[in-house]
């Protein structure tokens, strides 16, 4: 799957058929290829995440018993806290740490920038899932789709903060400038999170307190439910890691494309010009657009 992505990127931007030979122009550096080892790691993690999620769904819906108070509604507990854990702690924590590592001169590398960007992007998806699953749970238990409760509110503010981060990343800029800018914004947002947390907590609280990670560390649920909950956490964490790896790889390819866009376009135009003169034998195959028609006529 990963190789497909690489080749189609090259082929499409060069304007040739995927089957044609690579562009002969030497100035275009080839797209960074994925090593077979990292490919294997990525696939294994993806497979484990898939299996874990399927097992969680199976255990959560068919095997575990309904709750005394909440009935079948309790089954959302296998998804909702896990998704929230990934979004609020793992993804945004990772984004904050990698942004800091990028800003620290000794560890400055675009690696951290791409990692932060990937973490935020995946984190935003999980954050939306948190809000949606929480909303679905809140309607039957609290009677409302949305309550201005402390945790809901701070989760929503966090989502808006990191949507801002993604919006800033979309502004075209040199990779280094963009990296610095985004790292600063991520850092300012990360600093704000505890303040937002406290202020919103004082503001209003309705949400149930932490069940598993409570102060004396004794989980208040038992048996198959606890195990399913744990499996859900592991599966969702693996899913996050898998998405992170894929997004990181796409980030590398995007940067490569950004750096070589002009050369690729030049090679494409040159091959168009060369095609009729050499009887269409150069960059392989007819090209779309007006020049393609000319080849057909000749």
């Amino acid at each position, binding site marked *: 799957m990963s190789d497909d992505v690489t080749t189609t990127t090259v082929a499409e931007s060069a304007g040739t058929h995927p089957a044609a030979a690579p562009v002969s122009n030497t100035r275009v550096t080839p797209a960074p290829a994925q090593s077979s080892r990292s490919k294997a790691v990525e696939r294994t993690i993806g497979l484990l995440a898939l299996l874990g999620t399927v097992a969680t769904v199976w255990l959560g819906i068919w095997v575990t018993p309904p709750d005394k108070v909440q009935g079948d509604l309790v089954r959302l507990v296998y998804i909702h806290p896990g998704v929230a854990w990934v979004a609020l702690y793992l993804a945004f924590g990772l984004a904050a740490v990698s942004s800091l590592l990028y800003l620290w001169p000794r560890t400055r590398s675009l690696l951290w920038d791409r990692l932060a960007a990937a973490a935020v992007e995946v984190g935003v998806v999980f954050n939306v899932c948190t809000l949606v699953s929480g909303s679905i749970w809140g309607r039957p238990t609290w009677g409302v789709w949305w309550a201005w409760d402390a945790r809901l509110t701070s989760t929503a503010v966090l989502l*808006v903060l990191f*949507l*801002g981060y993604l919006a800033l990343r979309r502004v075209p800029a040199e990779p280094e400038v963009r990296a610095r800018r985004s790292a*600063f914004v991520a850092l*300012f947002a990360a*600093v704000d999170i505890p303040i937002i947390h406290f202020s919103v907590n004082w503001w209003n609280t309705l949400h149930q307190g932490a069940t598993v990670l409570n102060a004396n560390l004794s989980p208040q649920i038992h048996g198959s439910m606890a195990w399913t909950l744990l499996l859900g956490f592991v599966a969702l964490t693996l899913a996050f890691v898998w998405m992170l790896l894929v997004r990181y790889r796409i980030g590398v390819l995007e940067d490569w494309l950004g750096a070589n866009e002009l050369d690729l376009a030049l090679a494409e135009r040159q091959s168009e010009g060369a095609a009729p003169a050499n009887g269409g034998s150069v960059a392989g195959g007819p090209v779309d657009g007006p020049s393609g028609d000319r080849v057909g006529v000749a």
Partner: protein
Amino acid sequence: MWRDAALVAGKDLRIEGRSRVALSQVAPFGVVALVLFAFALGPDRQVMAKGAPGLFWVAVLFCTVLAIQRSVSVESSDGARDGLRLSGIDPAGLYLGKAVAVAAQLVVLELLLTVGVVLLYGAWIEVPWMIVASCLLGTVGLAATGTLYGALSSGLRVRETLLPFLLLPIVAPVLLAGTRIWQAAMAGGTPASGMQWLRLLVVFDAVYVAIGVVLFGPIQETA
């Protein structure tokens, strides 16, 4: 650092004194916002008095965005930003100066809006010192964060649209705290409940002023 800050703040306030942009555009905008809020909430004075603290702070937040935009655009033409950087002014002093100038304009604006809220919405203030403290502390926080984000977005062509999106969620704690302090200080409020919010504002201010003083130099390089 302090001398540089005074120089920069003096320069920005002198520009404002001559151009009167904040006075003739931002402040009237704040008043327009108050009138629009009144239209939105209907003519019931009780509802308006109840909503007054929040509406006051939302109006202040909107005006902050405009004041920051102005503070950035002052430097954006004729290579003024590069000139400032070349002049050997300490980045921390530059940051403090810009923030102080914005804060000074916001304080004047808040005074105007407070009078507006009291007169238009019939909101009665019981504990004036609390209102003054919340305004001063809130203003420091808004100017500190706003100047940071202004510098970050100063080189962007999409600055006008991106700045509010980035800045407003960050200053949400100021809105929450300011509103709660006002509610505590109004007729019918419990003044004691405002104290923890004042402390929160102090923490918010300290964090962002410290970040600005330390990081303003590197941030300028991103523009």
